[in-house]
């Protein structure tokens, strides 16, 4: 099976301070990391291989600045077999539609995939659309927010979030699956693979012309006007009084909001 | 100037030294490992006057002057620092304030019990929000008819779980006030026992006060005088800590001298190496300087002179000297110094508390500087 994992590099949030009172974001330390959702996606792909030990090929692709090279090498260190960096000045202003188009073109150029595994939503922009749009663009089946994944005859069995519970679904291949980050805590890369990732292995770089993408496909649908802070969250309800009564009231309130069964 | 000890002082020193060497010293390792106050040993010490050091002779106590009391603490420090701390808190921080500020009835009621082994004393000042800043304490003492009701929590109370009588500082309507609280008083409970780096034989506990009723007769001094009483007691106690430091440093040196003469490397006792000699010499220099400080400050106290600044200086110098000496003397032991069979391992851990308890080094520095500037008419703040 050929598994393609689109991954993303983001600004390390631990170096960022959000000052709502000043309506500003301070970058104290500019460092870039492989985003947690992407790591979970890589982990999910590696687990597919771990389960049957089969000859699965796992390929990481990333659309980003040249520095995303580091994210791809981390993917190699974790266990991916190949890595492709999709980078071009023309991708600078990519919105979700452009991102999807570029990723889809890269997957086509790789000869398509049996399975595409992506993070559910990235930690920075967090639209949660890439997986579904990719499936649409490629004409693959799609399951999102997956917690468990297993191969079975003719396709996959996936457990995904469903309302307040879970649903077990079957999908045929090829498919795009997005995974819930908490369900696939990533492994540590082996030290020797970390060394090899930089010393031995290569990241292939593709630009717009390699992907045969014309200006039409690279025209964003969204344009940037300004950014602002979301309205502060409303302060929750406060319960006071006798502990037993308070406990009862809290449970009732949670039930009304459908947060617990 | 005559630095010789008087006959009396010599006699007491010998008596204390005998007991410390024979009874306490051999148990040091056990006390540390058991992590329990050496109750039996402390009881034995009653007969030797360790509990009654400062109690006047008229009341069957030893009636020691400050200097002789320091000799006692030095011997204790040399034998075992845990035991030494227990007795130092008892004498300096409970018996002494009671003698100085107690009413006739209070002395009548408690002195005998304190002096003869029925009641151990504890001193409860520190709170979660009030360590160096003792004046920030928040324990409440509300007036209630004939007395007070205490509410709040004290932490790090040495002897807290063993004490029969606890000197407690709380905020009354007129300000911080000292109270003599009996351990058995309803509403007073013993909480968490601190697990400490060293001084493991001296137990520090949290004490919870919930609606603890204290009769007005158990108020020590006037309402609002508590901080003054505490600071005055701490003056003597800080000097006492320096005497413990002196004893501890002497013991550390003794251990290292012995080890360096017995331990052979490169075909000679390591005592033949110049750097070892230097460590030993520096330790001795620090010890003798500390001894002079202790002696001088005790003399100030005994001649009725102001000695608050000197007590801080002596404690600051003494705590540092003891930790530095213990550290170098451990180094003389090489790998053996890291092993629990060697007393130096314990002394190294024990001494470290001296730089924190009863006012950190930084607070002593502040107090000294404050005194200096005050004399020049400038008020400085911590």
């Amino acid at each position, binding site marked *: 099976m050929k598994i393609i994992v689109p991954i993303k590099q983001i600004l390390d949030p631990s170096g960022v301070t959000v000052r709502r009172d000043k309506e500003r974001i301070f970058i104290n330390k500019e460092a870039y990391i492989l985003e947690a959702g992407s790591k979970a996606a890589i982990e999910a792909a590696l687990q597919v291989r771990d389960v049957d030990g089969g000859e699965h090929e796992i390929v990481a692709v990333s659309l980003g600045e040249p520095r995303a090279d580091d994210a791809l090498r981390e993917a190699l260190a974790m266990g991916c077999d190949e890595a492709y960096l999709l980078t071009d000045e023309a991708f600078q202003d990519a919105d979700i539609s452009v991102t999807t188009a570029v990723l889809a073109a890269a997957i086509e150029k790789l000869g398509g995939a049996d399975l595409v595994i992506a993070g559910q939503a990235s930690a920075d922009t967090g639209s949660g659309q890439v997986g579904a749009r990719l499936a649409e663009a490629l004409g693959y089946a799609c399951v999102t927010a997956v917690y468990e994944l297993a191969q079975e005859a003719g396709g996959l069995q996936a457990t995904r979030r469903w309302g307040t519970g879970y649903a077990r679904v079957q999908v045929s291949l090829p498919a795009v699956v997005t995974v819930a980050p908490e369900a696939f805590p990533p492994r540590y890369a082996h*030290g020797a693979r*970390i060394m090899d990732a930089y010393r031995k292995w290569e990241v292939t770089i593709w630009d717009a012309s390699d992907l045969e993408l014309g200006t039409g496909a690279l025209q964003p649908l969204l344009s940037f006007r300004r950014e602002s802070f979301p309205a502060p969250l409303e302060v929750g309800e406060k319960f006071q009084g006798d502990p037993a009564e308070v406990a009862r009231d809290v449970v009732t309130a949670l039930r009304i909001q459908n947060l617990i069964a | 100037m005559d630095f010789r000890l008087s006959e009396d002082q010599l006699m007491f020193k010998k008596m204390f030294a005998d007991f410390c060497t024979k009874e306490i010293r051999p148990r040091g390792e056990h006390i540390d490992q058991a992590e329990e106050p050496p109750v039996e040993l402390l009881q034995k010490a009653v007969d030797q006057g360790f509990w009654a050091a400062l109690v006047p002779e008229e009341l069957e106590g030893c009636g020691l002057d400050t200097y002789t009391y320091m000799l006692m603490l030095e011997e204790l420090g040399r034998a075992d620092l845990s035991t030494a701390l227990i007795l130092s808190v008892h004498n300096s921080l409970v018996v002494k304030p009671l003698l100085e500020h107690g009413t006739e009835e209070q002395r009548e009621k408690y002195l005998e019990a304190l002096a003869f082994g029925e009641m151990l004393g504890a001193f409860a000042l520190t709170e979660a929000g009030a360590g160096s800043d003792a004046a920030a304490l928040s324990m409440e003492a509300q007036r209630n008819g004939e007395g007070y009701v205490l509410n709040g929590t004290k932490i790090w109370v040495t002897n807290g779980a063993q004490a029969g009588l606890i000197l407690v500082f709380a905020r009354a309507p007129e300000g911080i006030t000292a109270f003599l609280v009996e351990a058995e008083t309803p509403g007073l409970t013993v909480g968490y026992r601190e697990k400490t780096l060293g001084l493991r034989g001296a137990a520090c506990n949290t004490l919870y006060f919930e609606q603890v009723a204290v009769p007005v007769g158990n108020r020590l001094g006037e309402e609002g005088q508590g901080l003054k009483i505490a600071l005055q007691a701490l003056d003597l106690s800080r000097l006492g800590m320096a005497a413990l430091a002196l004893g501890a440093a002497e013991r550390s040196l003794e251990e290292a001298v012995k080890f360096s003469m017995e331990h052979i490397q490169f075909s000679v006792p390591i005592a033949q190496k110049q750097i070892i000699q230097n460590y030993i010499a520096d330790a001795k220099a620090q010890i003798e300087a500390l001894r002079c400080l202790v002696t001088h400050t005790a003399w100030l106290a005994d001649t009725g002179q102001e000695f608050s600044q000197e007590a801080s200086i002596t404690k600051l110098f003494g705590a540092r000297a003891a930790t530095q000496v213990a550290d170098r003397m451990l*180094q003389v032991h090489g790998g053996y110094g890291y092993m629990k069979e060697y007393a130096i391992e314990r002394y190294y851990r024990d001494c470290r508390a001296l730089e924190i308890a009863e006012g950190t080094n930084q607070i002593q520095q502040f107090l000294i500087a404050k005194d200096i500037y005050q004399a020049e008419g400038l008020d400085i703040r911590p």
Partner: protein
Amino acid sequence: MDFSFPKEYQLFRRMVREFVENEVKPLAMVIDREHRVPHETIKKAAALGLMGVPFPAKYGGMGGGEMGYCILMEELGKVDSSTGTVIGAHIGIGAMAIYLDGTEEQKQKFLVPLAQGTAIAAFGLTEAQAGSDAAAIKTTAVRDGDDFVLNGAKVFITNGDIADIITVMAVTDPALGAYGGITAFIVETDSPGFSIGSLENKMGIRGSSTAECVFQDVRVPKENVLGQFGAGFLTFMKTLDIGRASLGAATLGGAEAAMEASIQWARAREQFGVPIATKQSVHFMIADMAVEIEALRSLIYRTAWLIDTGQPHILEASACKLFGSEVAHRCIDRAMQIHGALGYSRDHFIELGWRDQRISEIYEGTNEIQRIVIAANLFRPYGLRIPT
């Protein structure tokens, strides 16, 4: 001059940091209390190649060199010195001796499993009468047919009781002394006659074991002679030279953790109505920590670079251990002071750090011995011998 870490080392550090934060740190106070070696951590570390960081891939290692090894030790030093000591004694002295002077066959047979972490190493030098004076060892090795027969006892051996392989220095010709009369051996600890005497009860690094190793007619095949016959003293000293750089790296980590904890506590703790961080007594202490840490970091990684590029490094490695252990001492001591009574409590990791740190001024050559080594190096060019 480029002072940045190569990218693979940056990623490696990130991986190690996550590993130690998640797997090592939560156990630090537990293994101290329970006085036990964290075998579970060692297994996990082995699975990631961490038990063989400096060694080349062809010997089962990770290929990280001294730089990678120092990164590992620094990160371990930040969270737990016990685990650092177990791994350090295994890699830095135990396995290192075989890497430096072993034959190709010895490396394939012994270094590969050690680097992969399927076997654990110890380093057997010290004896009751031979600590700083390593040449005064009494353990003997006598030739008997194709074997050597070892008799004697080693003390203070880290990992002694958990090791599969222990490198041992023994006297083969008393007449020849240190140079010529001492030979190094690789001993498998399942050899008949090898036993563990007492285990030490220590102030700190209680999650690492320190054992007495007794050799009673232990037969070692002659293939297990490590390095030149009669040149064991050199093998051991050369090993210690390298070990000192990584030991310094561990102290760097300890110092950094002490500073970080101090910063956080000084911000949080209020006395006299303000955070204690606002007081000069407190923030000057922290500033001093930062300066010493910066100096130490430069020293450590420059020395790692000297080692990795095959340049002379004896003085510098000694300086790493000497300066590092003293910087770490001052940093953790200041951290304890800043934490007040809290720092004196065994509920706080500062207290553990304070106990653990103290060993670094003693083992792998006391700081006095380091000063002698450094001075000897400085006077040697003038033909002046510095006696020990």
